[in-house]
């Protein structure tokens, strides 16, 4: 029997290590529709997508895709040392006689491809490594869109994008739908699903829950998590007066108090990342920082971890900068504080086991055992392990850089509560997020950055993300 689906998977099972990512999962999408795949981290969305495009072989079940398929992944598949042009035209470079690549045509052709997709602010000669995560994602999407797919699968395409880039992508998704393309995407932002999707499929625990045309956010959250969600942002306890961290990085002066959550806002790529890395000793400058009353020059992360009351940095890209994926949950948790549980260089295994067990329980990390490779855990649980490493270090100054990127609603909610709780206990938090909403609701104070400087300082909770965006766009105020 012929079906009218462009994408059809049925009864799919797939396990990784000891974890069952998909169990009897099914998914179907038609040509000419935008179909959202929703679910918490670990629900099996990414695995289903990898199964659909043939990257992962199912243990059981059938998969059929009709038409030319293109996929953009969460783990960006651009080659970091090639230029934008080389990446865009990797599979179909301009060729001359003898089939040899004509290098001098690469840049103009790439420019044209970018222009066709409405991107004029990127120089095709830029090496991909030097791009912000958002721009890399845009390049990845252009590359995929340029293949004129009949089935387009996008895994978390908007997680790294700015608002206007999201609008740009939405426009292209709608255009493709009009051309009869089947567009499947995942997102953790409900308003995008609501605005774009013709139908929504919800996954939970590796299996299909429902497929509907209409679904409210609270219904969806209930379906995805099996529980209902209370108020999204937790109340903030008032910050203390004691200065936890004081530093000057370039033109930015940071004064962070105990119990305070200080937000760093602004458009992406205005020097926020450099600020965070520098404070942690991983930037180009080696700043003098006063941590918990003692002045230190921080030359490397080790200095930051040991400085005064301790500094911790949680990066946005947990796979590249945070976790050691093939290593165990235990090894990942213990790495920053190994010497504290050691005698003469030997790890005290029993003490380590207790400490690790304690953190795993406290953060409710879902893992079969602490000996499992952290790479087999779902995204949200990986993020918890990364946070756990720094809870274990007891660092009182937390630098959290866009840590909710690509994390589902329920885990985000847990994370907000955790951050508010850590602050209430007297820890100092420096927070950057590509979702301005989070900065607006979760911070006592917000520094809005523009071109490496502080453009405005707002008292929080700001509440309205528009105010931060407005401050980010305005000319620098005179202080």
């Amino acid at each position, binding site marked *: 029997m012929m079906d009218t689906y462009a994408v059809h998977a049925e009864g799919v099972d797939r396990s990784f*290590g*000891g974890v069952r990512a998909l169990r009897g999962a099914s998914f179907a999408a038609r040509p000419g529709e935008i179909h959202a795949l929703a679910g918490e981290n670990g629900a099996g969305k990414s695995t289903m997508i990898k199964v659909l495009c043939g990257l992962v072989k199912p243990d059981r079940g059938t998969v059929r895709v009709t038409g030319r398929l293109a996929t953009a992944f969460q783990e960006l598949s651009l080659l970091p040392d090639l230029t934008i042009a080389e990446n865009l035209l990797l599979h179909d470079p301009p060729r001359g006689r003898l089939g040899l690549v004509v290098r001098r045509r690469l840049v103009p052709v790439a420019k044209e491809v970018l222009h066709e997709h409405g991107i004029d602010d990127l120089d095709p000669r830029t090496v991909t490594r030097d791009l912000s995560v958002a721009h890399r994602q845009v390049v990845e999407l252009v590359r995929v869109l340029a293949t004129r797919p009949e089935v387009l699968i996008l895994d978390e395409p908007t997680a790294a994008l700015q608002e206007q880039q999201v609008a740009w992508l939405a426009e292209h998704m709608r255009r493709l739908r009009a051309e009869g393309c089947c567009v499947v995407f995942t997102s953790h932002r409900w308003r995008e699903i609501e605005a774009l999707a013709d139908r929504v499929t919800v996954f939970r625990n590796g299996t299909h829950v429902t497929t509907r045309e209409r679904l409210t956010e609270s219904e969806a959250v209930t379906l995805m998590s099996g529980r209902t969600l209370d108020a999204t942002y937790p109340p903030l306890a008032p910050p203390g007066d004691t200065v936890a961290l004081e530093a000057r990085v370039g033109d930015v002066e940071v004064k962070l108090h105990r119990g305070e959550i200080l937000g760093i806002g602004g458009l992406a790529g205005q020097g926020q990342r450099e600020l965070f890395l520098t404070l*942690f000793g*991983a930037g180009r400058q080696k700043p003098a920082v006063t941590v918990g009353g003692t002045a230190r020059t921080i030359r*490397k*992360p*080790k200095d*930051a*971890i*040991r400085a005064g009351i301790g500094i911790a*940095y949680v*990066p946005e890209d947990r796979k*590249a*900068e*945070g*976790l*050691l*994926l*093939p*290593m165990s949950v235990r*090894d990942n948790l*213990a*790495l*920053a504080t*190994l*010497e504290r549980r*050691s005698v003469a*260089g*030997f*790890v005290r295994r029993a003490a380590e086991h207790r400490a690790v067990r304690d953190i795993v329980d406290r953060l409710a990390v879902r893992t079969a055992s602490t000996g499992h490779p952290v790479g087999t855990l779902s995204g949200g649980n990986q993020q918890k392990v990364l946070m756990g*490493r720094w809870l274990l270090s007891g660092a009182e100054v937390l630098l959290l850089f866009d840590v909710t990127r690509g994390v589902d609603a329920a885990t985000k909610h847990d994370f907000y509560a955790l951050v508010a709780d850590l602050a209430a206990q007297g820890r100092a938090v420096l927070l950057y997020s590509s979702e301005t909403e989070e900065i607006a609701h979760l911070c006592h104070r917000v520094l809005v950055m523009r071109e490496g400087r502080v453009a405005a300082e707002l008292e929080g909770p700001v509440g309205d993300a528009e105010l931060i965006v407005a401050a980010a766009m305005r000319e620098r105020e005179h202080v």
Partner: protein
Amino acid sequence: MTTLDTAKRVLAGPHRRVLYAFAAAATILVAGAVIHPGFGSWTSLRTMLVLASFIGFVGAGQMLVVLVGGIDLSMPWVLNGAAIVLTTSSLGQSGRLPLAVALALGVGAAVGLANGLGVAWLGVPAVVMTLGMNGVLQGLSLGLSKGLTCGSCASYAPEPLRRLVVGRLFGVPSELLLWAGVALFVTVLLTLTTFGRRVYAVGNNPRAAFLAGVGVRGVTVVLYMLSGVFAALAGITLVAYGGQPSLGLGDPYLFESIAAVVVGGVSILGGRGHYVGVVAGSVTLVAIVTLLQAERVPEYGRNVIYGLVILAILFTYGRERADD
């Protein structure tokens, strides 16, 4: 949990490659014993194990740098240089032996230090840095010993050292006890110490390790130093085995060190592997060569078959990589 489950888990886990390495060694030993009577005798096994121990030493050093995604191509002449330093400074006298051993190991450590500093601080690719040092060591060895014609170059390794390799303790060649000691040292270092944890962290993702406070450069330097020391140790024991150093003594050991590491299931990309695997890899290599010699295969044929067998072993591992 049933035995089958446990077996399945081990086979699926990180220890699978180590098991494969032992399976490879066992296969060749059993095949040899079947094809060639006497191959499986204790005398024959003992000789093979002693020969394997030299590969085991260079393999230990090579493995340590491979674990952090590096490689040590300076091994042949570090080994050779250490051997020459040992005989020329000991002059065959037992009294001078401790000094000579310290000097020889010191040469290894110094070259390793230079390699490590070049790779970690100056950012020179490991292949270039260590190959360069190999050339430097070769030149120094040839020049300073005047092509091994210098007065003291005629000296033999002192007697106590020779006994170490040729002698027995409780019926076991003492050389093998030394190898067991090295195996214990490397295994304990990598699995029970904070340093070992950092080694695997750096090998898996140097950037993430750095951001977790690991001194990536320091770890790298120490590993290259250990690699140099192990190459020197191989040189010392080889000269004790043969009595006198020769030029080109270390030449076969570059290939063998890398082959033992890879056959032993250590990921050449870094971050994964155990020394027990390298032990099995070393035995496998020696068993192949011994078997071919016993079968009187001419040398060119031995080389061809040796290479092909190693490729065949690696081919059976290769399929695993994508899923790991």
